[in-house]
């Protein structure tokens, strides 16, 4: 692994992605099952509408930013696969940014290489970009924001954050940890914040998180608002089946009871969906990348809909936290991978029987989604348990001296 140079890795990845894009074009032309994502056709239609001076929203089911349609305008006059090349290039940028972030924190070369490989050769990730899905662009921007923050470029990070939230709403969940992360002890005017370097000591590092009570106060007061806000529509997928059933109960014999039950369930679900992300933020904000990761996993696991493209949201952060985990690949890591894939495959199997074979397996599908939820929860807990909490920054010695004088 040490003999693999980053340049070679990127070159091989790029060639591989170009090959996949070309294969995808062939498959679309010659086979009934298309390689290209249906969403890419939606983007392309919207882009061609924009190119002809019309609103991209004339294309039904286009619910993305107009910037995305703008980026894909060249689909109309350069090549229909322009967007795929753009998204695959973003994919490569994610690999580059992973390396930059890890090198800045003095992670050894071999670990950096492993982390890059985990992203660049992950089947979930390279198919997403080459099929024409825009998630790699989002991932690249998020990692760039992290780079800006660790370099102390707060204004630039803020601009990119605003752009990414416009592009895709889900990164709004990172706003709270970023706010908590911007600690004045680390961010001083004209001085680059000091990074905590990676250490080979895999023992648990106990970090002192001062001003926790003040932060908790601020977070808790916002918790009340989060409870009543639905900006994070985090109803989870397994509720999808139940809500289809419950929607009809309103029309049957006891509408008042059904209405109350639905309202109660909505209130309680809203409570739960708000509490766990807030606790995750409160506990891990200073270890910003890990905080992003656990928030994203929880968000995806508890979301109303799950699709493979959402996994990319946390896959881009996974390589950044692995150097700080003491979970061994054999056998804990491998078990987690097999458990996650097994639960997902089991769930997809019932979904296949329902959608493509027409069997009434709603109940089994629902139970499979509960199992998948349980698997996601278990793996998240395992990652939390085996993570070495490592704040990104350490305090400047100058500020420490000032505090001592004040005392």
């Amino acid at each position, binding site marked *: 692994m040490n003999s693999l140079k980053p340049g070679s890795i990127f070159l091989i990845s790029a060639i591989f992605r170009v090959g996949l894009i070309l294969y995808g074009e062939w498959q679309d032309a010659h086979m009934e099952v298309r390689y290209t994502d249906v969403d890419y056709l939606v983007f392309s239609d919207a882009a061609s509408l924009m190119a002809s001076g019309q609103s991209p*929203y004339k294309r*039904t*089911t286009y*619910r993305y930013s107009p910037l995305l349609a703008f980026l894909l305008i060249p689909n109309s006059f350069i090549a229909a696969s322009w967007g795929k090349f753009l998204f695959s290039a973003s994919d490569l940028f994610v690999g580059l940014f992973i390396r930059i972030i890890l090198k800045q924190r003095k992670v050894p070369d071999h670990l950096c290489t492993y982390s890059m490989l985990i992203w660049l050769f992950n089947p979930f990730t390279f198919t997403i970009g080459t099929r024409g899905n825009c998630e790699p662009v989002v991932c690249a921007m998020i990692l760039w924001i992290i780079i800006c923050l660790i370099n102390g470029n707060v204004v630039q990070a803020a601009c990119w954050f605003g752009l990414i939230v416009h592009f895709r709403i889900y990164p*709004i969940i990172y*706003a709270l940890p970023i*706010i908590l992360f911007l*600690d*004045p002890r680390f961010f001083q005017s004209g001085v680059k914040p000091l990074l905590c370097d990676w250490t080979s000591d895999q023992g648990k590092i*106990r*970090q*002192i*998180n*001062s*001003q*926790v*009570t*003040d932060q908790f106060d*601020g977070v808790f*007061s*916002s918790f009340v*608002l989060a409870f*009543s*806000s*639905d*900006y994070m529509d985090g109803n989870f997928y*397994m*509720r999808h089946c139940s809500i*289809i*059933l*419950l*929607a*009809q*109960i309103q029309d049957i014999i006891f509408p008042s009871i059904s209405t109350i039950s639905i309202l109660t369930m909505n209130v309680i*679900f809203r409570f*739960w969906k708000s*509490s*766990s992300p807030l*606790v*995750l933020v*409160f*506990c*891990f904000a200073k270890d910003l990348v890990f905080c992003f990761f656990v928030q994203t996993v929880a968000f995806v696991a*508890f979301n109303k809909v799950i699709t493979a493209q959402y996994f990319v949201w946390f896959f881009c952060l996974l390589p950044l936290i692995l150097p700080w985990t003491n979970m061994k690949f054999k056998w804990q890591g491998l078990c987690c991978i097999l458990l996650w894939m097994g639960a997902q495959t089991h769930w997809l199997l019932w979904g296949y029987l*329902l959608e*493509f*074979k*027409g069997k*009434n397996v*709603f109940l089994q599908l629902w139970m499979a989604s*509960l199992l998948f*939820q*349980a698997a996601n*929860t278990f793996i998240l*807990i395992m990652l*939390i348990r085996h*993570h070495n*909490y490592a704040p990104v920054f350490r305090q400047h010695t100058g*500020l420490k001296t*000032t505090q001592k004088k004040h005392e």
Partner: protein
Amino acid sequence: MSTRHCNRLCLNQKLAILWMFLSGAIVSSSEVETSRPSDSRNSDDGKYILRSYFDRYENLDDPSFENFMTHELSPSLCQVTPENRGLGVRLSVRELSLVGEGSHRQLSSSIRLQTGAESIPELPPHICEVIIIQRLPLGVFADPFELQNLHKRIGFRDMAVFGDTNLELPSFRSNRSAVEVHIDAGSDILFTQNSGMEINMLLPLHARYQPLDESGYSIIEIGEPDILTRCSMEGKQHKQSCLFMSSNESGKSRTRTVEWKIPAGMKAHAGFVSVVTFITASLSTVSIVYASMFWSGTKVLKT
């Protein structure tokens, strides 16, 4: 100085958090406008019969449509008298079946076009097209974008979907839709006698989420398509066209239907699904919260 600076930052942090959630609440409370589903172009010059129907009626229902076909299309019909009944074209549906499994199937129709026993040599040159109108019941829909791609690939003259084309609505929140397909039948066919052609059409259809049903399935019936032939000829001053209707029309109900059994949820499951889902969600959340607080490696300090 440092403590005052920190206190100001904490206040700014709280204000920032407050602003963030308020902004999110405002944004989420406003509805996203979706574009209106309409797949027929405004400049179709009246070529679609269904456009005329939907200009008059808001939703598709069988009695209104049959009334429309019988009475409002009659001025456009080619004049067939008892004496020249052998002239013109006759259309009939030979076969109707549903191909495939699951929620995505294809409706297979085989249509026979037969010219009359006598030719009409004195007619000017003309071009004819077969118009197939497939009315879809509540519970299934055709994807207009899929049909557009299909149209490009298989060379039908025109295809369009009318009615409710929202792809994502469940059955109990949607209205019916219909597909109109125009197929080239050739030129000068009325000059020939007793010639025929077979038209086979595979129309991709998709099932919507069905209302609850105790049996666990909804049975959807899809009837035969309405078929017409439109022949256009160059008149002395402008283009003229008229319609031949299939022999199934004139108020007679179509007899052939196909059944599609679509899975539906069962009311009996609703109660325990809610309870178990809630318990699972609660346990997941409590576990994550506990793990976060126990293994985060933080200590609470009073400054």
